[in-house]
């Protein structure tokens, strides 16, 4: 019922049965394609074969090249990653060597220490070629607590 509502019977009502009493005229024609000689067919086949072979070779070569290049990229990427990691680890070692917690004891052991006297000196800049302003030196001493 549902389908009948969707497709009204009028659609089917006007369909006519096929007529069987009509004979269609059939006039056979000559084949317009004339067959080539055998040697031409052979040449054509060999040519097609060569073309196919060349195409396949080109395809295989390209595929191989893509594969090889892809492998090279994968290798280079792995190498890049390895170098990145190595560089990171070297930078970490470099940073650790520069850390103040390590440098201070080594500096102390080498005889360095906080300044006990600071002297401030004013040096006038050069005023033109060949003339130097008289040096004015300001002196101050700071005692460490």
């Amino acid at each position, binding site marked *: 019922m549902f389908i009948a509502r969707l497709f009204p019977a009028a659609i089917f009502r006007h369909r006519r049965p096929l007529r069987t009493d009509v004979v269609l005229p059939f006039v056979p024609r000559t084949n317009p394609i004339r067959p080539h000689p055998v040697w031409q067919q052979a040449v054509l086949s060999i040519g097609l074969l060569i073309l196919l072979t060349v195409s396949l070779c080109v395809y295989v070569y390209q595929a191989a090249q893509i594969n090889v290049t892809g492998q090279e990229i994968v290798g280079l990427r792995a190498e890049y990653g390895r170098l990145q990691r190595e560089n*990171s680890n070297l930078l*970490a070692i470099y940073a650790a060597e520069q850390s103040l917690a390590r440098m201070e004891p080594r500096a102390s052991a080498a005889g360095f220490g906080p300044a006990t006297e600071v002297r401030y000196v004013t040096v006038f800049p050069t005023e033109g070629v060949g003339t130097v302003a008289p040096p004015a030196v300001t002196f101050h001493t700071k005692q460490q607590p």
Partner: protein
Amino acid sequence: MNGGGVGRSTGGFYRLRAAEPLPAAEATLPAGGEAWSARSEAPKAIRLQMVLAGLMIFGLVLAVQLVRYQVVAARRLAAGAGGRVGNAAIRVDLPRGTIVDRRGHPLALETYAYRVTASPRDMVDRQAAALHLAPLLGLDAGTLAQQFAAHADSPYLPLGFVGPAAGEAIRAMRQYTITAEPLPRRYYPEGRLAAHVLGFVAADRRGYYGLEGYYDTFLRANTPYPVPPTLTETDLAAAGLPQTPFLPSYVQQDLVLNLDRHVQYRVEKALRQAIATTQAESGTVIVLTPHGSAILAMASWPDFDPNRYTDIPSPDAYVNQAISIIYEPGSVFKLITYAAALDKGVITPDTRFQDTRVFVYGEKEIYNWDREGHGTVTATYALAESLNVTTAQIAVALGRTEFYKAVQRFGFGQLTGVELANEASGLVKYPGRSAWYPADLVTNSFGQGISVTPLQMVNAVAAIASEGVLYRPHIVRALIQQDRITTIEPQPLNRVITPATARTLTAMMVQTVERIPDLPIPGYAIAGKSGTAEIPLPSGYLDEYTITSFAGFFPADAPLFVILVKLDRPKTSKWATYTAAPLFRQVVLDLIELYAIPPDRVRQQLQAGGHVRPSLTP
């Protein structure tokens, strides 16, 4: 729809044929069913249309909401989630960017460890594999072979982590039954230095606390093999950033801080010594620049080593006390009261007050620290002697409206906006609210009954040093993201007092410092104020211990550094002048030495000649 058709039919789908017998119940329907059925067609069609319309509206609402949440507000909502969702989505092989200080020294960077696993099930010769692998793992070959034999059916046997050399050697073996997977690990080359500022990265590769927590999403790379850096040293120099081999990192999502590791180191050392000397339970030191509130150092104790973040006595060690812990500032807060009163013209440095032994306001008795009256005093003397009674009188003269306006202008009770995780906003009671009483005006005026963070307090003092302009404190100097460098400029928030008021108050603060024994440094004018605060309890205040602090800046005439030190519950003395002030002095001496700041007279001579200008540029 012929005779006997029932009104139940709708649209004809269930229309009964005339020949079918009617059910007994329906056969008894009254006559006129045909007419009734025809009448019911229209309302039912309308109902159907209404239902369809309702469904369409519902669908439309769903679609609109979908677009709203997935497209319009997606970024905001994702940011609001703070990366808390999707735990499983974080990849442990993604590296993070580097964090360097203002001179380009790394404070946090990535290194690699190699996770070694084996598949004993697939091994052809376990003995040979054990012989090859054991030296690289630092194990005995026999023990390793036994381990393989014990897990002969296992396709996955974790063997722990090894260093780069052993890891790469294992990878070079190209054995599919033994793998060494490189995994990034966060490394803090300075150890405990600035641990609270940096935070740490946990095993799940998420950042917690500090900058690691605040910039967690920014620092994390999206791919294990980012593209090579495109920024050059020239680009960094053009942006005013230090040229260092650590920048840009190959992740190219890096942070350059205002923090100076030398200052941080000295400050932490001084804090540790002060904690040991005073036997305080904890402490904090912050060093800012006045013009811009750039954070040069931020130290808290107890601290932790972010390289071994699980090795702590208590999770409290993770907490950055400079921004996350609130305290009653005590007499340091008098600076705000005096600033507001000077700015409004309520007082001048020479305004005289009658300092009595006790001052009663709002049924609250106010006493001085020595429980004595000081007679007729000037405002300058009252500040230098830290007199509560006079300060309360000034607050009353100023009025609650102006006082709390000033408190709000100076940024108390609100987040400073510093780029660190877990910042607290402080606690300020305002008039008109149920918890506020009139007596709060006078107690708040000398820093009692009001809670602030150390960063809020030092930033307010920095506003006085910068001639009245309050800046947003910031610790990040620049962000490097791929080929873009974003420099963080100082961000002025508002003018809290006039430049004239700032200069007047600075002169008063200098006199305050000069009255404290052993604090002044010959040749250098220092502006500052001490604060000794009682510790609030639910039932009152703790008598036994205090929180001592000292805030100030120098050189007073052209400030370069603003400093706040705070010690919790020192045992040797309960007064700031004997505990916090010496620590403040030591920090000032360290800064003078590190930045080669000449004495005021020398500096002024040099500046007058235009030859030398002290600068914070490394």
